[in-house]
């Protein structure tokens, strides 16, 4: 079990390095001097030159890459071009907010999806199962930001139960935190919950067709006992993959939802940096998100090793 884990960790490290090169290179294809881009077309030659020297934008690219990459490792990728604010602490603060959002949404999505998906699978020949499956198909088709807007119009604008936007830290005021986070969480979880429920359904359906489940029933287990004792672990294998993909989707999906609910998370910082042309900040945030995705994939791989004994021994 240890050896394959080490191997996968090696892949993770290599992927992080490779993707950092991709991100860095990507930001270099920009036409023209980055200082000119940051300052805008109206800036004077002198200002552009001053900024170029200040940020060392004229140094060889490998040197610039090394400075940025090593800065990322020490959580200090530098300061912003215009505001001169340190990028690291900003990302850290904003990331915390986004993680709250993503974590809560994922928890809610799983809480909805697993019972719903099992129900849809077990009852797939009955009217209620078919109706739920159709409903989940509609849930998948509604983009999170649309769900967010509709939820705002109902619960914030008409009913006035919760604020339509803003963010209160949990430590500051738990009640207001809960109120500010409930609609964004539901918006994100509705779609992801529907997607996940469909995967749970098909994983459980696959398992229900397995011979070993019939063996389990022939042993004297009721259908639900058989599914729970013999099916859950096997059904978890495909579901865990999807959950990993969904966490990644949620991280990026949060960008849009933060815009809908005006939440100062990492996504808002990313979008603001794009419009302010703070390219170093954009580059650093993108890198943080990509690393997060890669780490999630690694965790999924590690979970596989624990769930599926066939992988441990390497046999198939």
């Amino acid at each position, binding site marked *: 079990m240890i050896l394959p884990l080490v191997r996968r960790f090696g892949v993770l490290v290599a992927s992080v390095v490779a993707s950092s090169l991709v991100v860095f290179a990507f930001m270099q294809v920009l036409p023209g001097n980055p200082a000119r881009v940051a300052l805008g077309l109206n800036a004077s030659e002198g200002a552009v030159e001053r900024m170029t020297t200040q940020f060392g934008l004229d140094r060889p690219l490998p040197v610039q890459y090394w400075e940025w990459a090593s800065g990322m490792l020490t959580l200090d990728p530098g300061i912003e071009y215009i505001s001169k604010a340190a990028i690291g602490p900003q990302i850290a603060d904003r990331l915390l907010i986004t993680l709250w959002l993503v974590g809560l949404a994922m928890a809610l999505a799983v809480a909805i999806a697993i019972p719903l998906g099992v129900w849809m699978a077990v009852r797939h020949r009955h009217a209620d199962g078919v109706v739920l499956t159709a409903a989940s*198909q509609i849930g998948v088709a509604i983009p999170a930001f649309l769900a967010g807007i509709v939820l705002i119009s109902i619960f914030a604008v008409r009913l006035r139960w919760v604020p339509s936007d803003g963010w209160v830290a949990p430590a500051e005021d738990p009640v207001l935190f809960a109120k500010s986070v409930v609609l964004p969480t539901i918006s994100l979880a509705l779609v992801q919950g529907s997607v996940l429920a469909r995967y749970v359904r098909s994983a459980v359906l696959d398992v229900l067709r397995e011979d070993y489940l019939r063996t389990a029933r022939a042993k004297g287990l009721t259908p639900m006992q058989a599914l729970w004792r013999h099916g859950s672990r096997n059904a978890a294998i495909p579901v865990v993959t999807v959950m990993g993909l969904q966490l990644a989707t949620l991280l990026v*999906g949060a960008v849009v939802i933060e*815009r809908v609910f005006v939440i100062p998370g990492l996504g808002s910082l990313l979008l603001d940096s*794009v419009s302010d042309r703070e390219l170093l900040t*954009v580059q650093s945030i993108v890198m943080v998100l990509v690393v997060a995705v890669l780490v999630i994939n690694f965790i999924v791989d590690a979970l596989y090793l624990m769930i599926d004994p066939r992988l441990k021994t390497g046999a198939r």
Partner: protein
Amino acid sequence: MTQPIEQEITRSRRRPINATLIVGAVLVGVIVATAAVSLVWTPQAPMRVLSTEAYQRPNAEFWLGTDRLRRDVFTQILLGARTTLLVGIVAVGVAALIGVPLGILAAMSAGWFGQLIMRSNDILLAFPALLLAIMFAAIYGGSTQVAMVAIGIATIPSFARVTRASALSVLRTEYVTAARAAGRGPVAIAVRHVLPNVASLVIVQASVAFAIAILAEAALAYLGLGTPTGQPSWGRMLYEAQSTLRSAPHLVLIPGIAIAWSVLGFNLLGDGLRDYLDPKLEDR
């Protein structure tokens, strides 16, 4: 012993067209028809500001009402269908044209080259479509063209993966071994044997990717990083309507329904095609 198995496969290949497929095809058909109509006719000139009241509810003259800038909503919906389909076609086209050959190549070259393709693929997979599109927008500015290319590039890995997995199983079959033994070259095998056999899975994947592309484009337009103001886009319409949620909810609902409609359509089409084309049936 092989006879009953063969029978079973041919029987399921000839499975009747399922309800999911029909509903999906109808939903997609409506979008295509809408886009086609917009080529020859729109109730008002595209995106023109009219000399009428803003925020009109749906009525006889303006079937879906007017927006904040006194433009006809129905016209925008018709034109938006065109944008939606264009984005989907280009994004899926880019992804399939690059991803499918890469997948076949990776499957057919067993050594380091195949490994390299799949490893690069995995790294690209770490860039979700929306994130890649935001990166592109940061550099090239937001536009429909940039959005669809970015979404297309981000979709390459899914095509490459599906193609490779399917191609690997084709390459293991006996008729490919026979073709190899008969001295057929790798290109001939790829074109004559692999491509036709991965086609059905690629079609299913294309339908699903189309839905994802539509969602990504709508989100980008909503964020102001996709289709710019003055050009028709359902996501853009949502963004513009959000501030007047209370007074004119129809301005949110109409483009919202249009987006959900088309995503639902392509998802159902993909599911229906999968059930129809895949001999390993899912009974429901």
